């Protein structure tokens, strides 16, 4: 009986032996947004847990473009594809430099790390990267009248500058988002060889007293591209009931300058492991349970 239990323990340890050697993907960094003409560094960090490294492969949209195999000489090699310009000199087993970026560089970037023979344990993760072209022009409002009376129709358009991807426009009336029924959407206009897009958003409504709560009515157009671009334009219209001379104020809103957010690997909160691994704590608990059960049975 005792012997049997001992063998059982040995067997379990033997089975668990495999799990000790599990490679782990620590972090894959792919910026969410990058800018055309800039360079980007894609990072892939892993822990071989004592295993030998066979390869690190980078895929864009499922197609391999960079390979790092330590046994090769040189270890790094590039497989050309559109939108990929690898700076081979500065690329290593843990990072790839793309320089320069093109609009076609947008895509899904995957890093795949494999251990050596025979099982070629493999882990991989990916990140989405979008190459952005910021608008060459701020949004501007057209069609506004200097003065509106109650009941007058308001018909205005907001037009963005050319960009990629298309700018997202939003209307605000007196600081509140316009009701969807008042907003008139248009398909973005695509122009130029690089097929940049121009967004237009209309706003149509009849003037009502509530629009002049604070004496004047403010129409604001906000232009955004994800988190990397944020600009607005606002026009202020006076109501007729005020005896003041009508004025048309147009002011550049609090200019939020465009900024590129640092995009982290979206799934960095996940532990990237090639297999379920046993921590020292877990192993301790496991042995403890085994011993306890042994004591109870004997």
């Amino acid at each position, binding site marked *: 009986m005792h012997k049997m239990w001992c063998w059982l323990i040995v067997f379990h340890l033997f089975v668990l032996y495999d*799990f000790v050697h599990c490679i782990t993907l620590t972090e894959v960094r792919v910026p969410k947004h990058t800018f055309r003409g800039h360079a980007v560094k894609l990072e892939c960090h892993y822990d071989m847990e004592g295993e030998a490294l066979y390869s690190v492969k980078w895929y864009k949209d499922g197609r*391999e473009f960079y390979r790092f195999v330590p046994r090769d000489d040189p270890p790094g090699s590039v*497989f050309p594809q559109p939108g990929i310009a690898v700076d081979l000199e500065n690329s290593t087993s843990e990072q790839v430099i793309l320089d320069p970026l093109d609009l076609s560089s947008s895509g899904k970037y995957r890093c795949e790390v494999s251990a050596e023979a025979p099982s070629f344990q493999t882990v991989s993760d*990916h990140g989405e990267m979008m190459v952005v072209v910021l608008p060459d022009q701020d949004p501007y409002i057209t069609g506004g009248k200097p003065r509106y009376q109650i009941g007058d129709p308001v018909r205005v358009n907001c037009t963005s500058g050319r960009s990629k991807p298309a700018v997202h426009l939003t209307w605000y009336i007196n600081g509140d988002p316009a009701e969807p029924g008042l907003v008139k959407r248009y398909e973005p206009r695509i122009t130029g060889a690089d097929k940049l897009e121009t967004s237009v958003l209309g706003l149509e409504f009849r003037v009502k007293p509530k629009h002049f709560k604070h004496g004047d009515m403010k129409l604001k157009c906000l232009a955004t591209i994800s988190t990397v671009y944020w600009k607005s334009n606002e026009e202020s219209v006076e109501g007729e009931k005020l005896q003041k001379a009508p004025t048309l104020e147009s002011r550049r809103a609090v200019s939020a300058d465009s900024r590129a957010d640092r995009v982290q690997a979206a799934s960095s909160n996940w532990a990237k492991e090639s297999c379920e691994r046993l*921590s*020292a704590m*877990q192993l301790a608990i496991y042995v403890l*349970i*085994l011993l306890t059960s042994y004591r109870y049975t004997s």
Partner: protein
Amino acid sequence: MELRYRPVSVVRLMLLLLMVGGGKWAHVNCEGFKADVPTHLEKVLVNETAQIKCDVSSNLTNDRILLVVWYKDNVPIYSYDTRGPHVNSPSHWKDVAILEDRANFKTTREQSRAVLVISPVQKKDAGIFRCRVDFLLSPTKNSNVNLEIVVPPDVPKIHNEAGVVLPSHAGPYEEGGDLVLICVVTGGNPTPKITWSSNGKTLPSAMIDYAHESTLSSRLVVRNLSRAHQHNVYSCQASNFYRRNVTANVTIELRLRPLAVEIVNGSSPLSADRRYIVQCQSVGSRPPAKITWWMGGVQLTATNQTTSEDGNSTLASLSFTPTREDHGKTLICRATNELVKRGTKETSMKLNVFYLPTLKLELGINMNPEDIEEGDDVYFECKVNANPSAYKVVWKHNDQVVQHNSKSGVIMSSTALALQTVTRHQAGNYTCIASNVEGDGESNTVDLKVMYKPICRPDQKKIYGVARNEAAEILCQVDAYPPPESFKWSFNNTAETIDMPQSGYRVHAEQASSLTYTPVKELDYGTIMCWADNVVGQQKEPCVFHLIAAGKPEMPYNCSLVNQTSESLEVDCAEGFDGGQRQWFVMEIYDLQSHALLANVSSKLPIFTVNGLDAGLLLKIVIYATNMRGRSEPILLQAYTLKAAEKQTGPHAEFELTPIVSIGIFIGILTVLICIIIAVAAAFKLRATQAKQHTTATTTTAGGKRPGNLPIKEKISLPLSQSEDMYDEKNPDVVPSNEDPDYKLISANQTPTALHNSLCNSKHDIIGRTILDDSRKTYLTG
């Protein structure tokens, strides 16, 4: 190394402990390449062979595979390594815990195609298989295959509503009712689809409800079952993969009313008293109908019935002997299926029984059969009962067919016979006979009695010859109906008529009376008359008897030689008056030359046969009658016995139709035609003369009317003519020709044919053999 406490892992650890010895539990929490590379779905039946394709092709010429790694759900399970030392013998590695010994990676020599072969595949093999191919030159290729392991469902079971599994033949179901079938399918991965079908058509009425996990059921309802549903096969098919279907069938059996009943062979008429087998067929009954036979409300004896192999038709035979009474009755064949409502169907047949006519013959209603006198009108009625109707009715009187004759008052129809002014000759047995296809039927016999006054019976002895003081017993016979009651006798001579006293005679029998009379003197001879009388009246004409003094008989007459051979003779004569007493006859034969008596024959009748004569003799024949009073005059004949050679007619020469003969025949025919014309002319002439002579001829000779008494026919040689047969046929009276002129005698009694012969064959002699004594007396009856 992270030393984070992860409760999830602890739970897994516990599970591992419980399972003891479970395999690796490698797990990667990421979608892997599934999203980057299109995934092909591959379905394989469990326990069969899976061939998972891998794209190993490269566009570059000097390229080659370095390494192929297979991942299942992102865990490496198989590697194929050709790097470095393995360049010539690739290294295969597989995760034995997962694939055991069931997997092998195969590539073609040109490395264009490659597959991972898993055989047999198990349910646990399902998953996403990725093969990663590392090339020497080309970028890495990844192929994804979603391997689905199909576990076919168990064979479906068809239940009834009560949940009882049905056998392959279910039922019986009621006609007009509903059929509810539930198909239960257990197992199967992925979840199978259940379809109901019948006769190749998918039944839309099927609906699926889930009973519990891994068991499905589908309910089929067929409403208003009809005959068309009989033996329908309902199939429940469970399918989760095109390559493997499991099916359960149920054939339904219905209870059905008989559809039709038909008497198969009963249309033609039947003959009475013949045995028939009538057959009746019932079609469409399930289970087979029971067939019964009925006639006139009575069930006929049970018969054996047979059912066809498919059970659809039942044939019953009735062995049956119709009688004439059955004609017009209705024979019913009734098929009954007791298991269904209104399950009886019948057919009937009106019997047409043919039978022999039966007849009833009666005298007319108003007639008294005991009181019919001559001169009355009589009619009979014949009642015929026949099927089919008699096509002919024949009347018979004493077995002689009665002919319609309105002149003599015999009037007939098919049902009646009328006899106007009936005579006593029409009395007798009457029957009527009717005929139809079945035969002739004869009626009862009706004896028609016709009353009439007595009449004298014609064929009785009328002349009595007695000597004086000799008693004569005179018998008077009469015909009468009813029989005579009394007789009366009287004597008549030239002088007087005396009635005989009653004591002198006696009534002999019913129809006769006899008188004993003894003449004493000359006057006692004369005529005696006798009368009878009955209910109808007294005899009109008395029977007349002549009493004469007895004397010698008269000689026989009309003698002829009827047969003549070389050693025998036969001679027939007619007898003459017997002289009032019994006579007998004597024939004496003498040799004509020596006058020696050769034979002496006596006979009661004048018919003689003599044998043992010598051939070729010339004979003299003497014939006479004799009685107590003496002998008659003799009659003399000449005859001869045939020469031995002449006994038979010589064989005819073989007749050959040579041209000469043909010409001869032609000439002969021509001659004959001429002769006939002459003969006819002569005959007409002769007849004219005979008609004049007729009255005298009858008084002189009776033989004149009897030309046929020369029957001996012998060969006549006609040296130059071949037409002897024609003469022979036409003239049976030709007697043998003889060259000897001594025998040339010409018949005294030439007939027209004899005359004809003599005219035609003037060269040839015709010999009459009989010498008639013209002087012989003829006796005339009073």
